[in-house]
């Protein structure tokens, strides 16, 4: 084990996979001279030269060209600068990247990764702070992964690059500088499997990405109050690992879900609905979702603070269930 930042973990994943497979290449804005807007590609141009490509400000073409390059035998990793910009290339993701394999009867998969830094950071306000994974839960054909720590960042990115299907990789902007232990050597995290981070017996708390770290804090507070929390890191939003969640809820009889995105229509709704459909009998309390209020992300400090999910909000939600 070694301790590195989330950002370095993604960099290691890129280096290892680009060395392993020369079809892998990177395209996005401000990658070559700056190493990506958050430095997450730093140094790659030195080793990989023309396989690291700066694009015009043309997100539609970035994704469309990645799809085309994948169909022609390459394995692109495209960078979306900010996840907020997925709207600009939504058709390419939704109607092309996601559908081509199925709609053309399985002739060729679209083997590519779309990396998208998401979430709140530095009061970046309405158009640079969003968590958008829920949109992609509703799109058949995509895989969607969303690590919460450096080890998973590395392991999921490597798995995403190796996966023959199109994968969206959401990386939270606040996580880039966060340090954590990462296993030495080849480290792959399977796509489609949630992880029981900590066992507990009173309530199951499902979270992911940056919010997972807040959930861990909330669980610590609750333990002191005598509430034993089973923590699940979703890791993959789609395909969603319902088995892990259902078997945890069977044990604990209570379910809470915490995510940074807007609560209405968020991934929490799907998790809740699965449990209400398949394990209602197990439940001893209502299912609680902790998510952002139904507004765009506001700028002012006071408002952003009120908007964001905190360990206290998560703990309060769970206390209300007991």
């Amino acid at each position, binding site marked *: 084990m070694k301790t590195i930042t989330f950002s370095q973990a993604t960099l290691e994943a890129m280096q290892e996979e680009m060395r392993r497979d020369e079809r892998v290449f990177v395209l996005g804005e401000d990658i070559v001279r700056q190493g990506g807007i958050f430095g997450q590609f730093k140094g790659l141009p030195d080793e990989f030269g023309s396989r690291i490509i700066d694009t015009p400000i043309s997100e539609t*073409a970035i994704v469309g060209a990645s799809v085309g390059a994948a169909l022609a035998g390459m394995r692109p990793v495209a960078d979306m600068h900010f996840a907020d910009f997925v709207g600009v290339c939504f*058709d390419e993701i939704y109607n092309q990247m996601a559908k081509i394999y*199925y709609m053309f009867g399985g002739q060729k*998969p679209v083997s590519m990764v779309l990396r998208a830094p998401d979430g709140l950071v530095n009061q970046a306000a309405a158009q640079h702070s969003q968590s958008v994974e829920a949109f992609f839960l509703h799109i058949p054909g995509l895989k969607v992964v969303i690590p919460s720590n450096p080890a998973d960042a590395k392991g999921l990115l490597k798995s995403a690059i190796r996966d023959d299907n199109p994968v969206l990789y959401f990386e939270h902007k606040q996580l880039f500088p966060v340090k954590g232990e990462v296993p030495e050597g080849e480290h792959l995290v399977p796509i489609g499997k949630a992880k029981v981070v900590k066992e507990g017996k009173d309530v199951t708390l499902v979270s992911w990405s940056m919010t997972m770290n807040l959930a861990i804090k909330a669980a610590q507070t609750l333990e002191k109050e005598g509430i034993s929390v089973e923590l699940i890191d979703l890791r993959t939003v789609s395909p969603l690992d319902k088995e892990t969640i259902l078997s945890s809820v069977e044990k604990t009889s209570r379910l809470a879900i915490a995510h940074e995105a807007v609560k209405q229509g968020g991934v929490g709704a799907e998790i809740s609905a699965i449990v209400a459909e398949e394990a209602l009998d197990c439940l001893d309390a209502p299912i609680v979702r902790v998510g952002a209020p139904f507004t765009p992300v506001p700028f002012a400090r006071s408002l952003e603070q009120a908007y964001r999910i905190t360990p206290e909000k998560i703990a309060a939600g769970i206390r209300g269930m007991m």
Partner: protein
Amino acid sequence: MCAMPERKEAVLPLTGYDREALKFFYETMVKIRNFELTVEKYFFEGEIPGFVHLYIGEEAIATGVMANLRKSDYIQSTHRGHGHTIAKGADLKHMMAELFGKSTGCCKGKGGSMHIADFSVGMLGANGIVGGGFTMATGAALAQKMQKTDGVSVAFFGDGASNRGTFHEAANMAAVWKLPVIFLCENNQWASTTPYLTTTSVADIADRAQGYGMPGVIVDGNDVFAVYEAAKDLIDRARRGEGPCILECKTYRIKGHFVGDPEMYRTKKEVQQVLEETDPIPRFEKKVLDAGVMTREELDSIAARVNKELNEALEYARTSPEPEVSALFEGLYV
């Protein structure tokens, strides 16, 4: 900024063409025409479902372009994609079966007319999203360049599609990176019910090439020789690594926008007149017969062969089974 080639019409004497090329032209155009007429018939008989857009009247374009392509080259097609698919060399049986929604179709019956594709011949897909192909063709060309092949990619698009933002992003990207992509405009004067000049700010879409520092060439899209020659120059140029271009082929959409279109926006007479004056198939026949480079018998025997192939395809499609319900849940992920 590169030099702009002149606007083109065919200049090579017909005697300069080899016989295989001439046969390919005729066979391909007739194959497309008769395929489309068959599709129209079986659509009206209720055997072919979905939204179907015919390529009738535009056969010279796919034919003239594809005569310059290798199997390993790529094309991105449009919603009006049968002609491109045939000219690129797809098997008619699997195409027809696809349109009938059969399990033996090239997309296993999951795609249909608007989503026909045959990767085995480099046909990377029709598209229900107008303008969806520009960026994908650009990406395929990027791959060709990175793989150091001399392959090219052709993005077919309509006059209407030229106003999608994807055109701009792809053209700029392809130009900056000097990618081997041909932006192939089929200007058939109509975007659905709308005459193209009412929504398009330039009379010649090829003029937009200047905004990207690439050549923009215009040809008579109903003259297969003119298309062939213009495409040849530009495709060879792209193979040499000299970058992308726009080739605008002027043509006319003879049939309704889709099969079943009531066509309330134009008169039958207008269409009839264009057809009489410009139909690429009689024009070809007259030219080769006049020049004495092919005989009536040759032409007829080609057409007969095509019709035989087509009948077999039709029979195959009609007798093939619909997909099993289980196929619905298969093939979402690899």
